[in-house]
């Protein structure tokens, strides 16, 4: 109770500090006095501390199940395991917004600490813009989503956390995702600041590159965890559904990826200044659009979030304000900054980056338009449509072929100008590609020319990326991410083309077959756990070599809130996952059994990790003069 109060007042102090910092930084901007600025930057530490205290006290309230707190009452329960009590803190709207604030102030603190050698004005201006965002969210939290609301009379038991959110991957998914998603705010603030302080140059690129990589790595990790959760928990064996909520996290990722390539060009060649700034603004704007779409409840999605329209209006207005602000600043300071003298040659890395951006922005526009078009159509013409996987597949897949081809050639381009030689090596790569594609296509029995082309493209990218390991001045960051990306595409393609599944209604003792495997339903048992009761089905799978594999899918019936979830049982091998789920059929002793072969599933996770490792290499690569 007292702790909850502490959290609330700490938030208010945080807001006051923000306002103080905001006004003082604008005053200091005029004086340009570095001594006073240092004190101001110290205050940023305090601001972070206030939010941190507030966040910790909310976690504490969750741990001790303080049901005088409305958020705890609505989302927790005494019988929940400790881990889920803690993760429940950010598994709801109010708590997750507090996490937003924590990351917002955290990245600002990190930025200030990491930018000691940057111009004072640039640091002050970045602080100023970040404070605008911080204040906006402070008010949002306190006004519409206060996590420390009290309820009276105090309840003895809470309502519990939605069981499908009680999962380890989803427990850590929000903090990781938010570090990336909200981390983009500092890129936005710094971009505006660099424009005003006339600092859009090589050193700025070096400074902000860290934060772009930081956001990108965490966002990749967040998306990965979300997909793993969907695969395990939603129980139908998919990992990506082109659901609006997923798209919303993919959009900033795409624009960050484009930005990542741009910022290097700016760093090396002082080119694409205007475009880089635009991308910085777009990236954060997309994060905000995503927040708006998810929190306002405007979307109709599998991923639920409590919502109410007044919150939607607030974020929407704030979003418009931020976009207009950056728009005005961009127009005013545009001509001051962007005189570029260097030229771009057709055969150069600059061109490769431009082509990369061209395709990525196209993919981004497909996702963005696919996500918001139904909303526009509904409002303007009152017609309802669904935009699902077929739309994205049709518009994205054909463009992946040229994209991966450019991606294969791009890294071997040099800055400024490249003299292209076609040697024996590149010929070998093509031969390898064709052989491997032929084997793969033959193996999965796919005769469609388009699928074959996709495989050829993806394998070519894989070989070209691996080929760079032999180079003297190798760029591990790029090799890893590109190799990871090609592996990811190959695994996804293989996975979607050779997945097999069978759905049967059977009783205990019965069996069925899929390909050369026999699946036997051995028995059923009921067990009582702390906060749920579980019905476990025991299955034996006899594979081609008559080896027995045990699978134990579950149906969990949670007590608070009362709800049944289906837990998949998955046996992973390097080549395929065996995936089984069961469901109860009403009033009958049959069970609905769904058994699936999901080939190369683990490679989807591994390759995403490899992509992230590439990003980590890029962070730790000390600015050696190497080609990226």
């Amino acid at each position, binding site marked *: 109770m007292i702790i909850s109060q502490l959290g609330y007042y700490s938030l208010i102090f945080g807001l006051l500090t923000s306002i103080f910092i905001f006004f003082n930084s604008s005053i200091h901007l005029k004086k340009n006095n570095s001594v006073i600025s240092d004190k101001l930057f110290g205050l940023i530490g305090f601001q972070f501390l206030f939010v941190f205290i507030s966040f910790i006290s909310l976690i504490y309230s969750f741990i001790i199940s303080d049901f005088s707190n409305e958020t705890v009452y609505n989302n927790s329960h005494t019988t929940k395991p400790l881990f889920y009590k803690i993760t429940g803190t950010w598994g709801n709207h109010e708590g997750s917004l507090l996490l937003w604030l924590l990351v917002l102030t955290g990245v600002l603190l990190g930025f200030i600490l990491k930018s000691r050698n940057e111009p004072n004005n640039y640091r002050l201006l970045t602080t100023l813009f970040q404070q605008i965002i911080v204040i906006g969210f402070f008010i949002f939290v306190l006004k519409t989503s206060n996590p420390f609301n009290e309820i009276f009379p105090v309840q003895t038991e809470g309502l519990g956390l939605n069981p499908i959110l009680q999962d380890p991957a989803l427990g850590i998914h929000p903090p990781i995702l938010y570090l990336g998603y909200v981390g983009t705010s500092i890129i936005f603030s710094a971009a505006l600041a660099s424009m005003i302080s006339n600092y859009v140059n090589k050193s700025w690129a070096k400074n902000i590159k860290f934060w772009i990589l930081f956001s990108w790595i965490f966002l990749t990790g967040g998306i990965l965890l979300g997909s793993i959760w969907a695969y395990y928990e*939603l129980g*139908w064996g*998919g990992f990506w559904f082109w*659901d609006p909520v997923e798209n919303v996290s993919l959009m900033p990722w795409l624009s960050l990826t484009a930005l990542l390539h741009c910022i290097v060009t700016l760093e090396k060649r002082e080119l694409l200044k205007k475009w880089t700034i635009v991308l910085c603004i777009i990236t954060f704007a997309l994060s905000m659009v995503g927040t708006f779409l998810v929190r306002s409840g405007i979307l*109709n*999605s*599998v*991923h639920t979030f409590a919502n109410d329209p007044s919150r939607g209006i607030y974020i929407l207005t704030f979003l418009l304000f931020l976009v207009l602000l950056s728009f005005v600043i961009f127009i005013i300071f545009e001509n001051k900054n962007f005189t570029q003298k260097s*030229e*771009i*040659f*057709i055969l150069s890395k600059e*061109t490769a980056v*431009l*082509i990369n951006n*061209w395709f990525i*922005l*196209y993919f981004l*526009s*497909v996702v963005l*338009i*696919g996500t918001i*078009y139904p909303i526009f*159509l509904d409002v303007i*013409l009152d*017609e*309802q*449509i*669904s*935009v*699902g*996987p*077929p*739309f994205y597949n*049709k*518009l994205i*897949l*054909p*463009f992946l072929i040229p994209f991966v081809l450019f991606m294969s050639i791009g890294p071997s381009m040099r800055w400024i100008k490249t003299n292209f030689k076609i040697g024996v090596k590149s010929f070998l790569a093509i031969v390898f590609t064709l052989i491997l594609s032929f084997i793969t296509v033959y193996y999965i029995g796919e*005769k*469609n*020319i*388009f*699928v074959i082309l996709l495989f050829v493209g993806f394998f070519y990218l894989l070989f070209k990326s691996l080929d760079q390991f032999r180079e003297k001045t190798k760029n591990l960051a790029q090799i890893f991410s590109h190799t990871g990306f090609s592996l990811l595409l190959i695994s996804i393609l293989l996975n979607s083309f050779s997945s097999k*599944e*069978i759905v049967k209604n059977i009783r205990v003792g019965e069996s069925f077959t899929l390909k050369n495997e026999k699946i036997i339903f051995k028995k059923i048992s009921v067990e009582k756990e702390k906060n749920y009761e579980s019905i476990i089905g025991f299955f034996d799978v006899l594979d081609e070599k008559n080896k027995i594999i045990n699978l134990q899918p579950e149906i969990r019936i949670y007590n608070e809130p009362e709800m049944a979830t*289906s837990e998949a049982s998955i046996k992973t091998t390097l080549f395929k996952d065996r995936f089984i789920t069961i*469901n109860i059929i009403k009033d009958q002793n049959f069970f*609905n059994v769904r058994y699936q072969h999901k080939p190369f599933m683990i490679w989807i996770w591994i390759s995403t990790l490899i992509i992230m490792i590439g990003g980590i290499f890029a962070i730790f690569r000390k600015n050696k003069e190497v080609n990226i």
Partner: protein
Amino acid sequence: MTRMLMKSKILLTTKILIIVILIFFNLKNIAMASTFSEEQTINITKNLRCLICQGQTIHESNSDFAKSMKKYIKGELENGKTDEEIFSSLVEKYGQWIVYDPGISRNTLLLWALPLLLFLIGGAIIGIKILKKI
């Protein structure tokens, strides 16, 4: 009058253009069909949105409605209906909303054309930038 005609002509040509592009990359869907199989049912139900748990496909959903829908589609396939006929009769009953593939129509023309248009514009800008050597 002529303007109306022009408009519909433009509409038609864009429509044909998009269809040609899509057909080129979508040979697979034409190759299959005819014989009815378990896989065909799955392919159809994966493209249908469930009205009970809105956000899931019929294939994934375990709601009563989804179960009936699966049986209904099996029945229709056994009666010799093609995928197209099944889709169009369901759209007729439940609205365009029920299919995940928005298809090309007056309402969705922009949905398909806008990204492709942006791609062309982007290409033009980059082309000018490099060739003009600004």
